[in-house]
């Protein structure tokens, strides 16, 4: 068993209004960054867990996303990285 660090991105599903992203974009414009277009704000989770190998760590975290971490009605997730901790 090895300890892995797995990073997950959970983002609002396309088509779902993202007021936080819009607020950030507006604020950036106001601060003098006019070239910023779309901004999306999601969650970045970093989990520390034990698994036999990276593939198993990935599978485990997918199960956690399906069960708890992401809401399938409004969010998509992706595993952004699996590294030995």
């Amino acid at each position, binding site marked *: 068993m090895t300890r892995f660090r797995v990073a997950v991105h959970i983002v609002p599903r396309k088509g779902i209004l993202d*007021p*936080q992203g819009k607020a950030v974009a507006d604020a950036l414009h106001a601060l003098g960054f006019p070239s910023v277009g779309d901004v999306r704000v999601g969650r970045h989770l970093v989990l520390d867990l034990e698994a036999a190998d990276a593939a198993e760590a990935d599978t485990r975290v997918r199960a956690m996303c399906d069960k708890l971490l992401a*809401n399938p009605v409004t969010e998509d997730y992706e595993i952004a990285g699996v590294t030995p901790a």
Partner: protein
Amino acid sequence: MKFGIVTFPGSNCDDDAYVAVTEALGATGIRLWHKDHDLQGVDVVILPGGFSYGDYLRAGAIARFSPIMREVIAHAERGAPVLGICNGFQIACEAHLLPGALLRNASLQFVSDMVTLRVENATTRFTNRYDAGQLLRIPVAHGDGRFTIDAEGLSALEDRGQVVFRYVDSTGATTDAANPNASLDNIAGIVNARGNVLGMMPHPERAVDAALGSTDGLALFESMLAAVAA
């Protein structure tokens, strides 16, 4: 008739619901603890407002897995009534007792206010003491109340009369200004297809006493009594 009120870690409207049921309505209230597995024979389960598990991750997401929720889901599957208020509505959505989801208010601000609701369906077991189109004054207090659902889901809700309450202005019109969280189509409360689970963001338990400014929530509880009696 026995109302069971669940206390999750972080529930903070459980006392209010208990007082509404026992004192304003005169019914029996039973406190249900999230770690228990027994509904103690209650007829109605109330999932109260609050911030279960701090609303961390997503409102209602963690509470949905509390031990008691297995029993609550079974209770709902038997067709018995479940009322989710505010955080309870969020928990009910996360537990798939109701369709859709509740997202952060579009203002990104918590909103505490007295709102006007229009009763869209007065035939449910939660609303039979209201008239269709009746306007109610009931407080809201939430940060994540923006109901959302995909187009298909929305038309299903509409077709089956599952939208029970909408936010309206004092003339009864569904305006943006009257919508405290930018909820889809001003939706404030819905029932499931079978009609035994109601979720609503406003707090009827805070509107059962004239001294506090409104008694418009009382009929919601009375409706449940009437439905059982019928």
